[in-house]
């Protein structure tokens, strides 16, 4: 192999993937480890990488304890009901009690946060969201990480974690390649904080052809956080908890500020309120604990997001689509109109492009909404990710093994999308989780837990061979055909991605089957993924860019497999509106008021599934809390 091997040795904290979680980790690690070597390996350019690359117009997780607005336990109640009971309350409480300090730091660094002129507090969009001018959110947090890391390696696609050969189940760093130079990078590190983000594009998107990149979560979110950890043998949780989003049609423009701040609302094609019509039937499916409009009204307890999706899906299927967002009233106010547009320009420019292209002026016309394809992530409003230890002062024994946010692999920590069971962390919560993981990682090292890590030349050599195999495979087989992309010995990365998406869509409950699946479909899906895995060994990359895509699709494939395993294991429809198990339509609290945990054996590829206890640390007396 022609590519150079570059070894970075003696790293204390390696941050793999520097989005919001990773930047938080690199920043905070410096404080607790002022003498430690902190290195970042990032697939893109840290200044504009990850889900926040184009900016955000709101920080979705802020307690406002300073202004007497909320306490951490309030947030736990909210996230718990939104996720139909299934959250790691220890992790959530822990994130929520620190998140305000993160946001106050952001403001200090220059992030423009809007103020409520009367109250002096941050301008709220809703109970948990505050409004920002966030076009430069990512460059600002990247500055903080760059200033505090020893080295930042941009354009490194991390492909594997390295494992320690002196002690079983302990991490020893990571490897990857530079997508520009092709150099093979070896990072030998005592700890790794995995922040490589969630997964878009594992289900077939609604957009097609040239527009296929128009997905809601960024197309570069390749599920690497999950694949890296699963391949290393980390336990995962809640991977069945994929999310479907209601968004403005085609552009995927966010609806949060529209609903909450601009006070818009939805109606069906005939101008009718449709949501409440579906509630009685839905209540039979999920039970009164989870859908009680009366209590919701009294206490402002939200109706779970997935259930609202359910209503949209069913109203459209009943022939009364499309669903419209009623913007015409609010947009008569020039100030609100401006906010509406800024909201897109700050985080989903594609929606502004679409409305300009189709002459949709929300002042004169109510735009269409639709439900998206499913996504897998653990920081937005779903809880997919690694099974991690919680903090020592909160976590019950089953949730605690010493170091906060450490996965079941020693020395391997998670942040943001990588951590399971902590939905509604969003950008600020992901950064906060990075901070928590960093402090714990430094402690882990200081406690002497990372002594004597060994990585053999063989491990490195084997990985290198594996990493560049798609280039080799292309070289060997391309001349068997005259030209073009059809070759009997390989698929290219795009062909593989199309195959994965079609499979996940049809068997895993994607958009073309109305989010419906069952045990038979899931079993077929898993079988097909297994065969696809053999073909992924023969994936061909004609250049370094395709090599990047090859590894992205391999990571997406692994994440997908875990999603199907979990969906098959949980024999109930816990989140109607995100997906339905046709063979187990009802939410079944008796058997499934539990967290699901999986582990893939790295040697055999076999999955072990188990149920883990769901502890509620916070009471559910919403009425008392509201008073």
């Amino acid at each position, binding site marked *: 192999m022609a590519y150079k091997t570059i070894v970075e040795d003696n790293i204390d904290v390696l941050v793999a993937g520097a989005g919001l979680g990773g930047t938080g980790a690199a920043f*905070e690690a410096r404080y607790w480890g*002022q003498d430690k070597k902190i290195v970042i390996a990032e697939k893109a350019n840290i200044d504009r990488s990850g889900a926040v690359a184009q900016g955000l117009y709101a920080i979705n997780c802020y307690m406002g304890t300073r202004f007497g607005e909320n306490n951490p336990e309030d947030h736990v109640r909210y996230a718990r009901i939104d996720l139909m009971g299934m959250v790691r309350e220890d992790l959530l409480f822990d994130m929520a009690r620190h998140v305000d300090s993160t946001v106050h730091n952001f403001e200090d660094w220059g992030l423009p946060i809007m103020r409520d002129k009367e109250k002096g507090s941050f301008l709220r969009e809703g109970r948990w969201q505050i409004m920002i*001018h966030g076009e430069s959110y990512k460059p600002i947090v990247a500055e903080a990480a760059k200033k505090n890391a020893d080295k930042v390696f941009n354009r490194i696609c991390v492909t594997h974690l390295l494992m320690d050969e002196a002690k079983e189940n302990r991490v020893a760093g990571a490897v990857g390649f530079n997508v520009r130079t092709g150099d093979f990078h070896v990072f030998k590190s005592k700890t790794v904080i995995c922040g490589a983000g969630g997964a878009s594009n594992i289900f077939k998107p609604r957009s097609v052809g040239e527009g296929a990149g128009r997905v809601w979560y960024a197309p570069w979110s390749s599920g690497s956080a999950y694949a890296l950890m699963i391949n290393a043998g980390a336990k995962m949780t809640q991977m069945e908890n994929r999310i479907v989003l209601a968004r403005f049609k085609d552009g995927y423009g966010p609806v949060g500020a529209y609903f909450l701040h601009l006070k818009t609302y939805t109606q069906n094609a005939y101008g009718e309120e449709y949501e409440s019509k579906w509630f009685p039937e839905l209540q039979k499916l999920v039970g009164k604990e989870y859908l009680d409009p009366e209590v919701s009204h009294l206490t402002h307890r939200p109706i779970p997001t997935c259930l609202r999706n359910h209503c949209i899906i069913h109203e459209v299927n009943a022939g009364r689509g499309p669903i419209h967002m009623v913007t015409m009233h609010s947009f008569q106010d020039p100030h609100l109109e401006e906010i509406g547009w800024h909201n897109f320009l700050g985080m989903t420019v594609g929606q502004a492009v679409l409305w300009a292209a189709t002459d949709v002026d929300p002042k004169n016309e109510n735009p269409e909404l639709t439900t998206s394809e499913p996504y897998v992530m653990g920081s937005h409003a779903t809880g997919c990710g690694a099974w991690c230890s919680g903090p020592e002062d909160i976590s019950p024994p089953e949730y605690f093994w010493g170091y906060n946010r450490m996965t079941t692999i020693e020395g391997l920590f998670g942040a943001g999308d990588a951590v399971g069971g902590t939905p509604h962390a969003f950008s600020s919560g992901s950064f906060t989780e990075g901070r928590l993981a960093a402090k714990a990682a430094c402690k882990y090292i200081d406690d002497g837990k990372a002594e004597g890590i060994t990585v053999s030349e063989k491990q490195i050599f084997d990985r290198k061979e594996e990493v560049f195999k798609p280039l080799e495979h292309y070289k060997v087989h391309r001349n068997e055909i005259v030209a073009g992309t059809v070759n009997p010995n390989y698929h290219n990365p795009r062909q593989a991605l199309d195959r994965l998406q079609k499979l996940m869509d049809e068997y895993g409950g994607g958009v073309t089957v109305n989010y419906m699946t069952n045990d038979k479909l899931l079993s077929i899906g898993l079988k097909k993924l297994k065969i696809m895995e053999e073909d992924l060994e023969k994936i061909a990359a004609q250049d370094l860019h395709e090599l990047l895509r090859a590894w992205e699709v391999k990571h997406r494939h692994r994440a997908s497999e875990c999603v199907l395993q979990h969906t098959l294991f949980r024999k109930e429809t816990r989140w109607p509106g995100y997906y339905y198990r046709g063979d187990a339509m009802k939410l079944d609290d008796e058997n499934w008021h539990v967290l699901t945990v999986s582990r893939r054996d790295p040697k055999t590829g076999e999955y072990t599934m188990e149920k883990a206890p769901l*502890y509620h640390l916070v009471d559910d007396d919403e009425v008392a809390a509201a008073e």
Partner: protein
Amino acid sequence: MPTFVYMTRCDGCGHCVDICPSDIMHIDKTYRRAYNIEPNMCWECYSCVKACPQNAIDVRGYADFAPLGHSVRVIRDEEKGVIAWRIKFRNGEKDLNLLAPITTKPWGSATPDLRKETAPTQEQRDSQQLYSEPKYIRMDDGDVHTLESNGLKMKVGVYY
């Protein structure tokens, strides 16, 4: 193609190549100018558009749903700390100009170097505090929340 590059404006400086999170802005070997090599992996995130010193990159809405004839242009100025947008509708009836701040401090000046902070004490290390806490959490001198401080008790057993 979501982004495209005007041939006459691009000078091949590579800023767009450096920034694109999707690794799809590349320099064409023949023309030595940039182009989008994989439009179906473009998010229209505008990172490259904002980074181009020649204003050579533009966006044409996705062919699967966006008709031709519109424009959304942007100028981002780090020195002044502002971003300016101009949105022109296809039918020419709407032409919006919008301006927003991107920072409140001179660029990059306010992010701290934590090597220079006083080293944390053992007590801080053993506590639940993070950097800048408890001060940054709330105005009073209240410390990090615990279950106890918030009057919460862990429930025994597993139930809802």
